[in-house]
C-alpha cells in the first residue's frame, strides 16, 4: 500500500475540460503518479479507493439539489479541497441561468419539466463549502495545476498571481491588441494565469480566468464604449464563463438593454 497522499477528482456541472487538463499533463503524469495515489478519478480509471482523501480536485458548479448535498460529502471526505475551473470557482457559463427564469428554460427545452430537478441558480463550490485553493480558467492552465499540486505536496504556498492578464502580455512581448488594434479585450480586468494566450494570437481576452484582484470593470466598459463597442456587446463581453462573479455580474447588468424602468433582467430564450 502506498504511503503517498491520496488524490480524488470530482465532477459537478461542467464539461470535463479541466479534468482533461490533468490528463493532458502527459510529461508529468508519471512523476505525479509517483507522488500521489490516484484514489478516485472516474474520468481516468474505474478503480476506486475509499475515502477520506488527502487532496480533492473539484470541477463544476452546483446546479441541482442532489449536487448541493453531494458537495458536502466531498468536503467531509477531503483534506485539502481545490476547485478547478470557471464552473467550480464562479458558476461557469451555466450561471447565465442566474440572469433568467429557469422555469421558462425548462418549459421550452423539456417535454416533461416535472421530471427535472434543478436549482434556479448555478453557484460556485465556495458558496457551499470551505475551499482551500481556487484555480481559475476555462479551462484551467496545466502549469498552474502542477504548481498547486507541487506546492501542496511540498507543503508550501502555491504561486497563483492575482494581477491582470496585461502583465503576461508584456512579459511575453505581445503588443497590446486593445491599444494597437482597437480589439475589445478584457485583459485589464482579468486575472492572469493563461499566459495571455488569446492576445498572443491577436484576439482580445475573453476573461475566462475571471476578475483580477482590483477589477475596474466600469472604467474598462467606458473605454470599450468610447471605442464604439455597442452597449449590448459590452454586456455580453462580461457575461460569459465568469458571469457569476460579482464584478462581471454587476458590470454586465449595468449594460443590459433597458426594456422598461423596472424591467426584471432577462435573457432572450431561443429554441
Amino acid at each position, binding site marked *: 500500500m502506498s504511503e503517498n497522499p491520496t488524490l480524488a477528482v470530482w465532477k459537478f456541472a461542467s464539461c470535463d475540460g479541466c479534468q482533461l487538463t490533468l490528463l493532458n499533463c502527459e510529461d*508529468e503524469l508519471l*512523476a*505525479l503518479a*509517483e*507522488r500521489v495515489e490516484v484514489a478516485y478519478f472516474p474520468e481516468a480509471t474505474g478503480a476506486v479507493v475509499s475515502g477520506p482523501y488527502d487532496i480533492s480536485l473539484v470541477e463544476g458548479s452546483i446546479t441541482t439539489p442532489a449536487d448541493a448535498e453531494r458537495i458536502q460529502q466531498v468536503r467531509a471526505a477531503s483534506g485539502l479541497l481545490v476547485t478547478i475551473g470557471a464552473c467550480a470557482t464562479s458558476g461557469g457559463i451555466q450561471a447565465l441561468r442566474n440572469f433568467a427564469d429557469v422555469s421558462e428554460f425548462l418549459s421550452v427545452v423539456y417535454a416533461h419539466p416535472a421530471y427535472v430537478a434543478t436549482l434556479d441558480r448555478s453557484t460556485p463550490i465556495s458558496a457551499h463549502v470551505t475551499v482551500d485553493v481556487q484555480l481559475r480558467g476555462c479551462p484551467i492552465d496545466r502549469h498552474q495545476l*502542477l*504548481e498547486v*499540486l*507541487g506546492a501542496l*505536496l*511540498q507543503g508550501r504556498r502555491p*504561486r497563483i*498571481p*492575482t*494581477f*491582470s492578464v*496585461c*502583465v503576461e502580455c*508584456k*512579459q*511575453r*512581448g505581445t*503588443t*497590446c491588441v*486593445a*491599444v*494597437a*488594434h482597437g480589439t475589445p*479585450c478584457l*485583459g*485589464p*480586468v482579468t486575472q492572469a494565469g493563461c499566459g495571455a494566450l488569446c492576445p498572443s494570437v*491577436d484576439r482580445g481576452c475573453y476573461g475566462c480566468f475571471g476578475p*483580477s*484582484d*482590483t477589477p*475596474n470593470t*466600469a*472604467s*474598462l466598459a*467606458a*473605454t470599450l464604449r468610447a471605442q464604439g463597442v455597442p452597449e449590448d456587446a459590452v454586456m455580453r463581453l462580461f457575461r460569459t464563463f465568469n458571469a457569476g462573479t460579482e464584478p462581471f455580474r454587476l458590470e454586465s447588468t449595468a449594460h443590459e438593454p433597458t426594456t422598461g424602468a423596472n424591467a426584471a433582467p432577462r435573457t432572450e430564450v431561443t429554441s
Partner: protein
Amino acid sequence: MAGRRTLDLEGLQSLIDALRDRGYRVVGPTVRDDAVVLAEITTLQDLPGGIGDEQQPGHYRTRPRDDGALFGFATTVQSAKPVLFPANELLWRGTRSPSGFEVSRDVPDDAPVALFGIRGCDLAAVGIHDSVLVGRPAVDAHYARRRDRSLLIAVTCSTPAGTCFCASMGTGPRPGDGADLVLTELLDAEGHRFLIESESPAGADALAHLVTTPATAADQAAADEVVATATAHMGRRLRTDDLHDLLYASAESPRWSDVAERCLACTNCTMVCPTCFCTSVEDVSDLSGDIDERHRVWDSCFSLEYSRLHGGAVRTSTGARYRQWLTHKLAAWPDQFGMSGCVGCGRCLTWCPAGIDLTAEVAALREELAHRETSRTGPRPPSTDH
C-alpha cells in the same frame, strides 16, 4: 571625438554587417503585428521603412510615410528594457543530491547586443538603469554583464508622437550621453543619408571601419533642422521645475481618487516604462521537489500583491497605487537616485488602455494645489479687492 561623417544606405547596411561579424546580436526596430517592435535585424529591409506611428493616450497605430524614412516612427512598443533587463530571468538553480543540495548560478551566455536605433528617451533610461542596477553597492550581475558587452547606436528622433515629451525631460530628441554612435537620418535633396557621430572608443572603432564621407556644413544644418523640427512637434509638455515639491505636497490630493476611477490597475504603464525596474522573486520547483529554480520576474506597484506585508496588502486602493507610482517616479526617485525617474517617452500614456495622461495628471495636481493654497490664504475682503 572623431569628426562628424555621413553614411549612405549602403554604409548603414555595412554597419549592421560589421556588428554581426563582431558577434553582436543586432536588435533594432521592425514591424510586427502592425506595430514597431524591437527584434533581431539583419538587413535594412528589416527596418520599418516608410512606416510612421500615431500615438495618443490609449491609442497606437502605424501609418505609412511617403518619404521612405527608416526611423520615421516615434518609439518602439517596448524600450530596451526587455533586452537588457528581461521580464523573467533565471537567477540560480538548486538540485537536491544525496549529500544535500547543489546550487548553480546562472550566467547569461547570450550574444552581446547592439541596440540599433535606440531613441534619446530610451538611451536616457538605460543610463538610469545603469545607475540604479549597477552604480549601487548591490550590483545586478545579470544586467551588468549584458550592459558591459552591449553597444548603443542611437538615432535622433525626427517625428515625435502625440504622447512624447522628451524635450521637457531633457532626454531628446537628439540622444544625450551614453551612446556609442549617434545617427541622424537626413532626407532632403542631397539624398537619403545619415549623419554619424561616435561618442565612445567602441563607437569610434566601429566608425573607423565604415566607408563614410566628411559631413558638410549643409549636412550639419540639416541635422540641426531635424532636431529643431522634432522639438517643435512634441505632443506633450511637462513642467519639471516644481515636480518634486508638488508631488509631496499632493499626498492627500483628491485627484488620486479621481484618477482611481479611470485607472484599471492593469500594470501596463509600469510594464512599458523604460525605467520601472521593480521585480519579484519566484521559486519554481518540480513535482518531486528535487529541482528548484529561482526566477526574477517583473512586478508592478499596481498589483495588489506587490504591497503585501504581514497581515495583508498595504496599498489596497487604486488611488494609493497610482500615487505611489507617480510620486516615486517624479519626486522620491530624484531623492533616491539623484535624477528623474521619467524620461518623457510617453509610453505610459499610449499603452494605458484607459488613456491616463501623466502630464495631464501632474497639471491637475498643480492646479488643485494652487487652488488649495488660495483657499488656505483665504479670499481677500471684497472692499480691498475692487
